[in-house]
């Protein structure tokens, strides 16, 4: 088990003293500080679980990486660029798996997987082939022409994973993608997801509020306390023993109980 900073190389995702404060919305409520002075580097090929309780600022961090929000102070860089101001530059370079499947109901499974490729103006024949391949890889062969309402929750989430992987983006962002599924389906999908990320050499940020999920995903675990501040940054060895996992679990539980 190793604890401490990652080895020095150009970070794929870089937070430099980033903070995010949301202005007051009502007469009684004051400004809300969601992220507080975070400095964090995520290197190419790392699989990082961002773990924290509900409302600790995980989604705010996520949105800043995705370019859907910008820090109030400090900087966020993804591949050395500002994801908010250079939003369009990240077309095809960054893909997201959301908490719910967010499939377009008017598109078949195949056409949903093609969505990201369409945005890159890929010719129809080429994107059909890629989408077909990813559906097969995720065990959905034979369901290409099914509309989302015909698929189970697990199958729909597989389609959304296929949609993200089909773009061949080097960075994957996942916002609690399996939290709405039953534990057995979620565990199987987590394993498949982690395998695909490692095989593809992707950089992945996986947001979760579940300690078990963070330990299942493996790689690096960053524990956040409210407002988003790093409380623990730890690397989980690929072949961690049960005792090691239990020790990490206890440390995380202690932090989250504060």
């Amino acid at each position, binding site marked *: 088990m190793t604890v401490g900073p990652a080895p020095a190389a150009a970070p794929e995702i870089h937070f430099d003293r980033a903070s995010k404060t949301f202005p007051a919305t009502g007469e009684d409520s004051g400004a809300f500080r969601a992220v507080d002075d975070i400095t964090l580097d995520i290197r190419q090929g790392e699989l990082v679980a961002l773990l924290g309780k509900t409302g600790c600022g995980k989604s705010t961090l996520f949105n800043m990486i995705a370019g859907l929000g910008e820090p109030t102070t400090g900087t966020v860089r993804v591949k050395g660029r500002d994801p908010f101001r250079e939003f369009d530059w990240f077309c095809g370079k960054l893909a997201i798996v*959301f908490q719910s499947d967010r499939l*377009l109901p*008017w598109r078949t499974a195949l056409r949903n997987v093609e969505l990201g490729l369409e945005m890159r103006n890929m010719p129809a024949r080429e994107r059909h082939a890629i989408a077909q391949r990813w559906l097969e890889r995720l065990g959905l062969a034979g369901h290409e022409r099914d509309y989302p309402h015909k698929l189970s929750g697990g199958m729909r989430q597989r389609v959304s994973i296929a949609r993200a992987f089909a773009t061949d983006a080097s960075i994957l962002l996942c916002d609690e993608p399996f939290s709405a599924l039953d534990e057995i389906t979620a565990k199987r999908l987590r394993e498949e997801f982690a395998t695909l990320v490692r095989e593809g050499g992707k950089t992945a940020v996986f947001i979760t509020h579940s300690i078990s999920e963070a330990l299942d995903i493996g790689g690096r675990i960053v524990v956040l306390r409210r407002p988003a501040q790093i409380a623990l940054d730890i690397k989980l060895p690929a072949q961690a023993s049960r005792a090691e996992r239990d020790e990490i679990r206890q440390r995380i539980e202690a932090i989250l109980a504060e």
Partner: protein
Amino acid sequence: MTDPARPPHRARALFRLIEALLPFAVLAALWQLASLGLPRYLVPSLVDVFWRTLTIFQDWSQFQNVLATVGRIMAGLIGAFLVGSLLAVLMAQARAADRFLSPILNFFQGIPALSWVVFAIIWFKGIEPRIFFIMIVTALPAFTFQVLGALRAMSKDLVEMVMSFRPTRRRMLSAMILPSILPEILTAWKVNLGNASRVVVVAELVGATGGVGYELLQQQQIFDMAGALAWTLQLVFFVLIAQKLIEMIEASAFRYRAQSERTL
């Protein structure tokens, strides 16, 4: 394998046909019954109405009047839809535009169609510009508010998901916005089609020298109820055909929707 509990396809089709025709058959039977006991100039026989209707179909000079009215309805609705969609996009994008345009459109909605007819006769010289103007101003607020409502009702989650792929404006429109608002647009067309067919007759009654409204005025002057009904039926047929076409588009475009076995 077929389900023995389900009736065969042909029987189901026949049942649907009977179901569709039954209300009209009852209505026609009641009218025909009334025509037996009331004066012909008040409630003419449906046989007379049928022959008059057929004559309009067969006589090109008469049928041209039907086509003229249909053309006016479609031109007005297309114009109102295009302008209304543009206004709706503007209002959805800018709160200031919404605050400025909403009261004006609400004000327009309060003006009766007949008042617009009077204004049009005063403001415009030609018959066609008058009718086009009336059709546009009467359908514009409804189209604008319906498209605006559809734009605002788009799923934020789905918009965000599509945005995460960094689409161009054109791609965003084709992949997300149009399929998302299409159900509301088709409903708006169905509603406005019925409204427009009523408004166009009023407009033609007052200012036109041709069209179904003009012909209705002629029938009124000679006290010909069978003729009035025959001309009215022309518009009803058009609305029914247009509604059916829209329903066919809906059936094809919305086949992705889940069907519940239990209806409301």
